């Protein structure tokens, strides 16, 4: 696509999606989907997007319902399982503190996917995103209760799996290609540079 017209078209479409999101949110807050609430929602959404102008989010323009459902269900399962894990950890008398901060270089080059991945892994108890390197798409994640390198690599693999599910669901075609490549080609790992 040509950079000019393509970019503008995509951001117009993104804005319509986000605009509809605002209206739906308004209806959710009122708890009713009547003509009145939709109309007042549209009016409010216009006012808000004019008054509180923010840079447009560049949605990828691609969504796969099946993969989105897979992602959400898996997220719920992960949250439930990991919450019980952390709850158990808290009362486990033999708990010995041992955690780590991992640099995880993601495949994606999209800010949005990176944000969502960070949200998703932060939502699952046991991991917190401590810092982010946006240029290199690196997340620095604090992991609780890992005892050895195997555990660390398992966790790293689970983050990549989360990212892949997310990209398959709403990522751009470019990112989908990228997550399906062998890791060494696409991730900006800078280990061994010293």
């Amino acid at each position, binding site marked *: 696509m040509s950079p000019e017209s393509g970019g503008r078209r995509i951001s117009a479409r993104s804005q319509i999606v986000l605009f509809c999101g605002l209206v739906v*949110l308004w*209806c*959710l*807050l*009122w*708890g*009713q*989907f009547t003509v009145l609430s939709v109309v007042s929602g549209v009016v409010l959404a216009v006012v808000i997007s004019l008054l509180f102008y923010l840079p447009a989010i560049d949605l990828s323009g691609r969504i796969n319902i099946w993969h989105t459902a897979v992602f959400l269900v898996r997220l719920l399962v992960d*949250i*439930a399982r*990991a*919450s*019980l894990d*952390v*709850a158990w*950890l*808290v*009362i486990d008398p033999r*708990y010995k*503190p*041992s*955690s*780590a*901060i*991992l*640099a995880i270089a993601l495949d994606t080059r999209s800010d949005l996917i990176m944000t969502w991945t*960070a*949200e998703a892994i*932060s*939502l*699952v*108890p*046991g*991991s*917190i*995103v*401590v*810092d*982010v*390197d*946006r*240029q290199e798409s*690196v997340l*620095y994640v*604090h992991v*609780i209760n*890992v*005892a*050895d*390198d195997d555990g*660390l690599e398992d966790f790293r693999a689970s983050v990549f799996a989360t990212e892949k599910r997310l990209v398959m669901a709403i990522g751009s075609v470019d990112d989908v290609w990228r997550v399906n490549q062998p890791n060494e080609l696409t991730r900006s790992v*800078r280990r061994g*540079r*010293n």
Partner: protein
Amino acid sequence: MISDDIREIITVVLVLVSALMCFAAGVGLMRFPDVLSRLHAATKPQILGLMAIAAAVAVNNATIATFALLTAIIIFQALTAPITAHMVGRAAYRSDHLRRDLLIRDELSDSVDRAEQDGAPPAPHGTPPAPRDDRPSG
């Protein structure tokens, strides 16, 4: 529809799960050793607890209005809780409020060192600005 008895039982189980999660968060705050670990206990299990409470409310008051409001509540909690954890965690790391002796690996400090070696000003995102001494905090 489901009978009242079954509904009661489901509600009780959900509320208990939620209470357990809040309890775990409280104990975790006391027991875990440093800020980053405590954040895990303090911010996360409540999401499950909140979902359980919301489900309990929805089971007892199954109207579209309730579902809609609960959905909005859960979405916003799920979106904002990780941000809180991230901001606190980031501040804790930068101000050195963590027990480095409990970390079996710290790749963030590796890249901080690397950035300092390169002599370039630290990247706008991602690396703490000032060089730190590695004293154990506490």
